[in-house]
């Protein structure tokens, strides 16, 4: 089985939660013997050592024929004339890529129009997220298609698997041009990121992608629900595959200074943005501090809401009990988790959420919003509606006042954690592939 994956993040080349998930998925699939080429907009040269299966779409020559073919696909997408594309006669003698018979592979012959093979441009991408993101998403369509076709001809592939909206347009086009089935992986939707105030343009891309996909993988039941209800995807076209946890053999231990060893610390860690619900954490902290003035709160991370959170903490006069250590990386993350008496993820909408899995491994009990996908696989976790600040405060106080209760919840969650492997996730993904390609399990 050979999979051509399209992604926007991959560690160490730009990695947020999405990159981490992509890493886990590829590792799990490769463990199962799947051959993968993972195509990214760009890779940083100095860090290209991590796995030879990574392909950068930067620096790929794009022929005029390919460009025309992509434009044609776009036009066809616009006018909904899908059916005629794959029924064209094949001109097998026009193959600039060597011996492969692209006709047998189902590739659109227009791509190889002999008269148009000179290089029109060399693709180049910054990668990551910036003001030109939308432009890069569209240009990635052509460049990624070129890489997909090249990879497909190097060694025939079975499926195109695309992670989140940035790569959906590329996957749709590459799928048309190559004849390969397209599986869309839904890690997060615009509703998760922005509530009901997202960008229509992104929503439209997501909807078109999910509609056009031959199959959809959602990271939780909650996300599947969104795909069905808000993007109109037929439920039978969606498989739920939970993310895995990177289980550490051994979590390093951190010495806690004696002066603060018995302090009760409540941690928020993540992007300080609308989606993560930081303001509910701040308001709950005020209620907790009214009851338990010796508690300590930490909001680790950075984001557009951070200044507002700092001002609000000042306004509530709790700055000496509420700390903002900023963005954490590496060992500091585990250090922070292992110091926490409780990790709170009050996300307004969290498709899955990998952070709590890391917190659990570092021995921090977790309190999740009911709007978090990972709560589905951690039945022992404490949960609360993100908006119910009073109950959130009560739950926090429960944990701080009753360590034995917190320990039990932690034990149950850590138990569930053991079965949350990326190999299990890979099996789910292979089952999903089986819906669109018959030899997925061979």
């Amino acid at each position, binding site marked *: 089985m050979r999979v051509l994956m399209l992604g926007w993040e991959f560690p160490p080349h730009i990695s947020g939660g999405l990159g981490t998930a992509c890493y886990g998925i590829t590792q799990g699939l490769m463990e199962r013997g799947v051959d993968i080429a993972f195509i990214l907009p760009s890779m940083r040269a100095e860090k290209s050592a991590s796995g030879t299966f990574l392909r950068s779409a930067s620096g790929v020559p794009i022929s005029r024929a390919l460009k025309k073919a992509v434009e044609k696909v776009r036009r066809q997408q616009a006018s909904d004339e899908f059916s005629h594309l794959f029924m064209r006669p094949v001109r097998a003698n026009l193959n600039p890529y060597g011996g492969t018979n692209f006709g047998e592979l189902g590739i659109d012959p227009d791509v190889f129009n002999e008269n148009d093979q000179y290089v029109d441009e060399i693709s180049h991408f910054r990668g990551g997220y910036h003001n030109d993101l939308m432009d890069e998403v569209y240009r990635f369509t052509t460049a990624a298609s070129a890489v997909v076709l090249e990879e497909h001809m190097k060694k025939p592939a079975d499926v195109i698997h695309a992670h989140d909206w940035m790569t959906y347009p590329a996957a749709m086009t590459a799928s048309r041009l190559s004849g390969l089935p397209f599986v869309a992986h839904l890690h997060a939707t615009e509703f998760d990121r922005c509530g009901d105030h997202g960008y229509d343009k992104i929503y439209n891309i997501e909807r078109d992608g999910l509609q056009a996909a031959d199959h959809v993988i959602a990271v939780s039941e909650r996300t599947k629900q969104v795909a069905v209800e808000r993007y109109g995807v037929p439920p039978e076209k969606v498989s739920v595959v939970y993310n895995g946890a990177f289980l550490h053999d051994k979590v390093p231990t951190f010495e806690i200074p004696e002066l603060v060893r018995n302090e009760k610390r409540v941690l928020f860690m993540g992007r300080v943005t609308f989606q993560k619900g930081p303001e509910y954490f701040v308001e709950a902290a005020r209620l907790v501090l009214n009851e338990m003035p010796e508690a300590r709160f*930490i909001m680790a991370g950075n984001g557009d809401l951070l200044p507002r959170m700092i001002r609000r903490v000042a306004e509530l006069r709790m700055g000496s009990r509420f700390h903002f250590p900023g963005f954490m990386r590496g060992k500091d993350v585990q250090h922070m988790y292992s110091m926490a008496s409780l990790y709170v993820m009050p996300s307004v909408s969290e498709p899955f959420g990998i952070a709590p899995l890391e917190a659990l491994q570092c021995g921090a009990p977790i309190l999740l919003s009911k709007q978090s996908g990972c709560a589905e696989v951690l039945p022992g976790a404490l949960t609360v509606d993100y908006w119910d600040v009073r109950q959130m405060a009560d739950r926090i106080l429960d944990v701080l006042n009753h360590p034995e209760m917190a320990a039990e919840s932690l034990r149950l969650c850590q138990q569930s954690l053991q079965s949350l492997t990326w190999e299990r996730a890979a099996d789910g993904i292979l089952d999903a592939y089986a819906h669109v390609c018959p030899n997925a399990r061979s």
Partner: protein
Amino acid sequence: MPSVCFCFEVHQPYRLRPYSFFDMGAKNDYEDAQHNRDVMQKVAEKCYLPMNALLLKLIKRHQGRFRVSFSLTGIVIDQFMEYAPEVLDSFRALARTGCVEFLDETDNHSLACLFSEDEFRGEVMRHRERMRELFGQTPRVFRNTELIYSNDVARMACDMGYDVILAEGTDNMLGWRSPHFVYEPARCPGMKLMLRSYSLSDDIAFRFSNRDWPAYPLMADTFADWLHSIKGNGDVVNLFMDYETFGEHQWADTGIFDFMRALPDCVLSDPEFDFATVSEAADRYPVRGDLDIPNYISWADAERDLSAWLGNDMQKDAFRALYECLGLVKYVNDPELNEAWRKLQTSDHLYYMGTPQSSDGNVHKYFSPYRSPLDAYTNFMNVLADFRIRLFAKANQ
């Protein structure tokens, strides 16, 4: 016979290092010692040493007719001792001329007057002690942190035996009156109030090198003419400013040293004019009226009130969290904690958190070692949290 009264404020805070959450309970070295040393040595070289040398030369050349006053915070004196002892020597040399008066102020450059009379008095007494030790003078003049002033501050200073107190000559408070006379603080009979002539002071301190200013470039004879123009309409021109104006805020290449070198001659060219220290001027001129100032004024920002330090919630939170420790600090009375507490009180920490609406934001930014007021707040609160952890631990022992 009007007098020109220079009074220079000398201060450098102990800036805090980036203090991480993980340091809390583990490390109690709060200061960025290297940075403080660098700043002190840079400013000593650019400002304190050359300007002290220049003043000494001017005093000698004019044989007692050029006189100035200084106010040094205890915090800057500590840093002189630690990082630039030669600066302190040069101040001693100035003191020995007999033409230089040293004023008292809050030792920590703090806002103690706002929350505890005891703490305030303790700080001022400590400063008085230092002036006696260092310069052999017992100050008669009190100048509060950043010219923070109200009837209440005057009352406390009067009570402590000071004859003269300084304040900002704000328009709001003066109305039709002129800052160029000596006043009496309300309900402090016998005490004298000297007001900063902010416009003439800021011509030197802020506008001197501003190329957009119509009077640029300002020459000493022009400025002397402006001073002379108060003749018949004033007794004294009080020019109070940061000492760092000379060589640090205004670099040497702006010509600020040449300006000061030439100024005494230009001023004294009118025989009716002379220079005086603050208490000399106060002694010489009669009180022309009393001023009732119930609300706090200061020399900071356009508002000229407390908003530079207590203008937003971050500042108010930090201020409250700091000063609610007072009782326990006294109770525990641990030398190490006392010393840390002393330095945390320095008003600059609150000033860095300021978010003024007007262009004063740039002034805050110029002085701040932080990227933003938010950083200043979160870092200070981390340090303060550690201080409080140690304080509570000691108190509970």
